[in-house]
């Protein structure tokens, strides 16, 4: 532990004394007291006198006297500014500190810091002394061994952004010092740990360089600790660097640079040998920081020049000063000569090394690649290609650059670089690896023909392939054929591989894949033989579960099928692998279940034949006495089929439930179950199954489909078969009675003598029965409807629960999809009415829909979630869209716009509400929303809304350059999903506005002739084409005629877009009404056009209509 007498602390105290005295004017104005009185010019303020006396005592190191004088001053100066009180308090603390009265000094400094938040303000200079007081207090705390309190105060300074920069750096240094000093008497391991902690702090203090005195001080401390830890290289390098910074010596600059490089190399070598991953990463980090600190060739060359120059000047001075040197002087001269020579030699060697810069970039690139910073690594390697293409390790650079490109997802670029390398360096050592990479990239991208082509090219052209690489290439070629389902060539390739590489490490896999090739060709005999070979060679092979499953399929697929055999193998498989939880078995299980299902279905197909036969028999004997026997026979086979179908469904269901990791199997069995279960009225089973699958992962791309099935099945569950049965029962009950009653009516009607009363009574009985039947059926139907309604409510609840799960997660874009789904379902309940018609009393209105929506979203559960609230408004707004009640949308989207910042909303809401705002003309808010998407969500599915919207806003404010730039950006990056037309149209408009008529014309013509885009934009494009011709005409009659032709096409073809038609009419008429037209005949034409225009109801009252009326009068 540190004692108060330690040397370091003595020095520290001395320093603080120096600070307290040196940086503070010994005597300063007590400004409040020094205003001279007009009548007492020569009489000095007694407080000022006392202050000066105290300062003098302090300067003369009479601390006790000084303290007494300051205390006296404090008592007298009660009615002065705070800053003056602070000065006295600060001075008192200084005295106490210098008197080593630690506890009192602590109290006084604490009081100073607590009472005077502005410290001494501007009394001394711009430094209010709070920083010094803080550091002094920390010293005082340390002197009392109050380490933790001292470190806590330092931590506050370190993390305080408002602290003066030098105080912060000093705080780091002092923290490091305390940490290192307090373990002075501790065992070595404790010391080492503390030194490491101190080093970390000092590194932070020097992180921004060592270009200020306080940072250099931290660096000196760092050198000291490096030395203590035996890190001599680091210590020497840092010392040189500090010296270089302190005295600007070019020799030190050069020396420090090479020391840095040496440390970088040592760290890099250590990293490559380190087994522990975190250790390795740390070494790479250190290597990197050293390489990054080195100078580049141009800079270093200049430093060499300066260093040699200064050393030579030094030598000349010595030689001139000592023409007849003594022994010591001669030695100094020799030393100086040697140094000059040494620098010259290093410079020559350095000049010969052409790889200097590239090598640093190479190592930096490797460090960054290892540290998982591929983008930075990409930049480092790219620098070599750009600036040092003749680098001696260019082959290695290619290799790592290609790896980097793959890591950042630029496979096409990676392949181009592979080809470039193979072309340029066919004999390099890396050809094998790069050749493999070339094909591997295509293989990974599932571009198999290309991969095969690359592998074959490498095999045929690269002359120095290693045996292992050649074997791998053969295997990969066969595997690519296999992957692109070229079974016959793949099988041939595998067979050849097996012959060529008998001891290949991938032999097991090749035998297996070879068998699969037979299997997929449907050649079961060969398949069986190939799988048998596998089972013989690898009885415990890794592909055994699949092989056994395929063997079962072979039994199923051979003609005639061996269904019992298949089922037996499957059952055995399930039994054998019941407890095996390996990935292969887990993946295989649903396929085995599916095969069981398929086998049972095959059996049912056999039974279908029996049923058909039984049915024929029954029909044949339908009137015979033993009909019952045939009925029974048919029922028996039907029951048999039912049992087998049940087994198949059970198997498919089991397959589905176990297919979480096997999407292919899952899709297949779900397809089968979708066909079978609803037809059998097993909606609940269907619902439960899909709910289970949906719950596996709500973010799965198919989750929406599963949820849809859950909803549909739940809804269907309401319409239970029981209702049909009940209705049938009721019908049956009444049918006999009704038949009797009707029969009675018939009989009465046929009778000759029947009274009207009798007949009416009989008919009334029929009517009564009919009514009773209808009533009973209505009851059943009511129950059914109630059940359906309940089921629909349940379905909505499931949907709302799903929405609720992600409602407050802004990043879940799926939430909006679910909301739209829900809104659509709820909106269906609202009966659409014509405008102005009021809904019937009790009818379900859009307000009810909105209320239901809010309830279903469980907004009360997400009260604290901003996005949930926004989504609830969005949901109700969506109801407005579905029910075509724009006011509802308006209100709710308006609430979003008024209450939410862009960063609180999801991209979907930003895009949709942004578009709504744009239409409403709120460009500012819309711009904020679109801007956020452009900044944060360019990869969003709705990014095109932002580009189109932002471009529209820019164009509206006549910033065509910006609008054009946005459109070009969207087009260049293919961000055009659903807004391509809008973006292309704005682009064309901006081109026209910036007088780039040729480009604009092409764009407008493309829009006008694209069938899929026929509509308003076609009309607008035609108008713009006319307008452009008109603008370029400059009185040219032909061009004006061309303009009229476009206008005419617009108003003739696209009358329904009145805005564009009106503009076109008016523009045409204007052209005819003036020069170079403007003759009587032209004016008559103009009149005709205007007349036609004003006959259109939708046009006559527009702004153009008004203008047309005025124009017609002037003609």
């Amino acid at each position, binding site marked *: 532990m540190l004692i108060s007498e330690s040397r370091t602390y003595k020095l520290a105290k001395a320093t603080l004394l120096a600070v307290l005295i040196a940086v503070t004017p010994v005597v300063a104005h007590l400004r409040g007291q020094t205003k001279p009185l007009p009548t007492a010019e020569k009489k000095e303020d007694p407080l000022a006198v006392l202050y000066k006396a105290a300062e003098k005592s302090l300067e003369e190191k009479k601390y006790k006297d000084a303290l007494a004088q300051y205390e006296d001053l404090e008592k007298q100066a009660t009615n002065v500014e705070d800053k003056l009180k602070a000065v006295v308090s600060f001075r008192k603390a200084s005295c106490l500190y210098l008197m080593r009265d630690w506890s009192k000094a602590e109290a006084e400094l604490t009081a100073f810091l607590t009472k005077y938040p502005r410290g001494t303000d501007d009394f001394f200079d711009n430094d209010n002394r709070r920083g010094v007081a803080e550091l002094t207090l920390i010293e005082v705390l340390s002197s009392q061994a109050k380490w933790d309190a001292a470190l806590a105060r330092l931590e506050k300074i370190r993390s305080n*952004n408002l602290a003066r920069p030098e105080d912060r750096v000093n705080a780091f240094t002092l923290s490091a010092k305390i940490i290192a000093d307090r373990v002075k008497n501790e065992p070595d391991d404790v010391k*080492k740990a503390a030194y490491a902690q101190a*080093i970390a702090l000092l590194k932070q203090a020097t992180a921004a360089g060592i270009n200020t005195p306080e940072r250099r001080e931290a660096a000196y401390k760092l050198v000291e600790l490096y030395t203590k830890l035996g890190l001599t290289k680091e210590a020497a390098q840092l010392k040189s660097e500090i010296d270089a910074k302190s005295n600007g010596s070019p020799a030190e600059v050069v020396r420090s640079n090479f020391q840095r490089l040496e440390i970088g190399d040592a760290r890099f070598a250590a990293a490559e040998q380190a087994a522990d991953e975190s250790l390795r990463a*740390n070494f790479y980090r250190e290597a990197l920081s050293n390489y990054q600190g080195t100078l580049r060739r141009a800079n270093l060359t200049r430093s060499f020049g300066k260093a040699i120059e200064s050393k030579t000047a030094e030598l000349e001075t010595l030689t001139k000063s000592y023409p007849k040197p003594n022994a010591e002087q001669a030695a100094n001269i020799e030393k100086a000569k040697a140094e000059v020579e040494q620098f010259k030699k290093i410079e020559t060697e350095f000049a010969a090394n052409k790889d200097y810069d590239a090598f640093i970039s190479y190592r930096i690139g490797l460090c960054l690649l290892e540290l998982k910073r591929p983008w930075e690594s990409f930049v480092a390697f790219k620098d070599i290609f750009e600036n040092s293409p003749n680098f001696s390790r260019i082959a290695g650079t290619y290799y790592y650059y290609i790896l980097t490109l793959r890591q950042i997802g630029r496979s096409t670029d990676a392949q181009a670089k592979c080809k470039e390398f193979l072309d340029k360096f066919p004999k390099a050592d890396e050809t094998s690896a790069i050749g493999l990479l070339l094909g591997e990239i295509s293989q990974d991208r599932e571009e198999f023909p290309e991969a095969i082509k690359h592998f074959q090219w490498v095999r045929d052209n690269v002359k120095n392939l290693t045996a292992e690489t050649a074997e791998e290439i053969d295997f990969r070629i066969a595997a690519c054929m296999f992957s692109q389902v070229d079974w016959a060539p793949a099988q041939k390739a595998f067979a050849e591989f097996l012959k060529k590489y008998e001891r290949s490490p991938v032999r097991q896999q090749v035998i297996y894949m070879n068998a699969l090739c037979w299997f997929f060709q449907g050649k079961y005999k060969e398949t069986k033989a190939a799988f048998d070979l596998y089972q013989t060679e690898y009885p415990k092979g890794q592909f055994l579960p699949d092989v056994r499953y395929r063997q079962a399929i072979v039994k199923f697929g051979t003609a005639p099928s061996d269904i019992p055999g298949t089922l037996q193998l499957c059952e055995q498989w399930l039994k054998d692998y019941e407890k095996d939880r390996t990935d292969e078995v887990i993946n295989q299980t649903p396929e085995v279940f599916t095969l069981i299902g398929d086998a049972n279905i095959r059996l049912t197909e056999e039974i279908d034949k029996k049923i058909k036969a039984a049915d024929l028999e029954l029909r044949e004997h339908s009137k015979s006495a033993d009909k019952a026997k045939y009925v029974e026979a048919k029922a028996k086979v039907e029951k048999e089929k039912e049992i087998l179908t049940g087994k198949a469904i059970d198997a498919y269901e089991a397959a589905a439930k176990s297919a979480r990791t096997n999407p292919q199997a899952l899709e297949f069995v779900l397809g089968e179950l979708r066909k079978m279960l609803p037809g059998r009225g097993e909606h609940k089973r269907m619902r439960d199954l899909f709910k289970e699958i949906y719950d596996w992962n709500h973010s799965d791309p198919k989750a929406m489909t599963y949820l849809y099935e859950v909803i549909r099945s739940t809804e269907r569950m309401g319409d239970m078969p029981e209702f049909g049965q009940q209705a049938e029962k009721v019908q049956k009950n009444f049918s006999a009675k009704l038949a009797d009653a009707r029969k009675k009516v018939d009989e009465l009607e046929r009778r000759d003598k029947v009274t009207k009363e009798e007949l009416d009574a009989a008919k009334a009985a029929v009517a009564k029965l009919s009514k009773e039947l209808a009533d009973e059926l209505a009851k059943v139907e009511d129950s059914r409807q109630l059940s359906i309604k309940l089921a629909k409510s349940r379905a909505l609840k499931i949907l709302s629960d799903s929405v609720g799960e992600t409602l407050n997660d802004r990043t879940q874009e799926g939430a909006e999809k679910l909301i739209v789904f829900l809104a659509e379902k709820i909106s269906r309940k609202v009966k659409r009415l014509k405008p102005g018609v009021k809904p019937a009393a009790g009818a379900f209105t859009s307000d009810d829909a909105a209320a239901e929506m809010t309830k279903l979203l469980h907004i009360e559960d997400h009260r604290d979630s901003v996005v949930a609230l926004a989504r609830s408004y969005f949901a109700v707004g969506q109801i407005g869209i579905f029910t075509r009640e724009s006011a509802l949308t308006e209100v709710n989207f308006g609430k979003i716009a008024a209450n939410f910042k862009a960063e609180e909303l999801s991209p979907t809401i930003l895009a949709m509400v942004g578009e709504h705002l744009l239409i409403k003309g709120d460009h500012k808010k819309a711009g904020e929303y679109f801007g956020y998407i452009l900044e944060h969500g360019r990869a969003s599915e709705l990014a095109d809304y932002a580009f189109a919207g932002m471009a529209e806003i820019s164009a509206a404010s006549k910033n065509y350059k910006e609008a054009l730039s946005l459109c070009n950006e969207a087009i260049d990056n293919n961000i055009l999903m659903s807004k391509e037309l809008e973006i292309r149209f704005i682009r064309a408009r901006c081109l026209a506005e910036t007088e780039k008529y040729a480009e604009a014309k092409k764009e407008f013509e493309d829009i006008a002739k694209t069938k899929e885009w026929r509509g308003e934009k076609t009309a607008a494009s035609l108008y713009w084409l006319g307008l452009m011709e008109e603008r370029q005409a400059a009185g040219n009659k032909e061009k004006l005629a061309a303009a009229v032709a476009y206008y005419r096409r617009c108003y003739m073809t696209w009358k329904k877009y009145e805005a564009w038609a009106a503009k076109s009419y008016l523009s045409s008429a204007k052209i005819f009404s003036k020069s170079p037209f403007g003759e009587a005949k032209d004016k008559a034409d103009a009149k005709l056009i205007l007349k036609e225009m004003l006959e259109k109801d939708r046009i006559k009252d527009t702004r153009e209509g008004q203008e047309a009326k005025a124009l017609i009068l002037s003609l």
Partner: protein
Amino acid sequence: MNFARLFTPVACLLAAAAAHGQTLVFKGGERWEINDPFKIDNSSIPPKPVFDKAKGVINAVKETVDRSSNQGGVEVVLTRKLSEVTAIFWPLPARLAEAQNNVNRGENQKALEGAEAVLRLFEPVKNIPGSWWANAAIVKLDVLDRLENDQAIGTFLEAFEKTEVAKQPDVAVRIQMARLMQRARKGEHEAVISESTALISTADGAEVQARLHLVKASSLFATKKYEAAMNAYLRVPVFFGSAVEYVPRALLGAARCFRGMDSPALKEQKLEAISNRYLYDIIVTFPTSKEAEEAKKLLPKEERARAEADQKKIAAGGPLPEGVIMAKPKLRPEEAVEGNK
């Protein structure tokens, strides 16, 4: 090494100044020792510059040097014109050293005051060998550039460019850089891109290179050449990582470029996540920088909270998250020792 260094740089500089003295050499070889106006006598109220009667005093306004001399018992004041000075021997003025320190600490206003004081003193002798005017002018230029005060830069540069010292290669590069920065701020991006590219190949020093790359990258970004801008930005941390002051700006720029590069077609490259990762790095590694504040604004709020929490953990000595390289590593003692063997 001792702790006293921490607080005594100014004293050291003053001591050094006193040791060598300030001397002006006039035509004909006459040498006058001169009082250092930046050396303050703290014992006077108020503190004032140390004054030695035997030494001369520069009067920058009159452009003269005055010195008292006792000639035959009579005290006379000798005056010489500064225009007659042929050489200056003057150690680094403490005020200039402090101004440079102020620049390095980001205290621009203080730095400007210090540089101005030195400029005023040496103004009449700015082209004389040994004058500190050019050095002070470079400090001032640097500060004005950091303050982005284009009007002041413009006026100052016009005067500066007319001086002889402006023709010195190092000074000329600094002037070119200042002009370049001005153009960048004016939005002359195409010109900035080509000029900065040319300067990059000739300029010295990590700091200058970092600044040039930043200005080039900014102009590339402004012209929506995101990929090229990203490349230029990332060259700063990759190759000039020692110029730490510029790293957060470069990382922030790179983060913005990744966002610009993003599109639905490149969704798989997860460029927004990469961008967010850079923003995270800035918050975690440079928590007190103004770029960290900017990064917080750009980062989605969920990730912002995570970054802030991680930053606190790291500040408290917690482990570095994977991939963070800019933060200074915390060495374990055994690693540190082993590493040097």
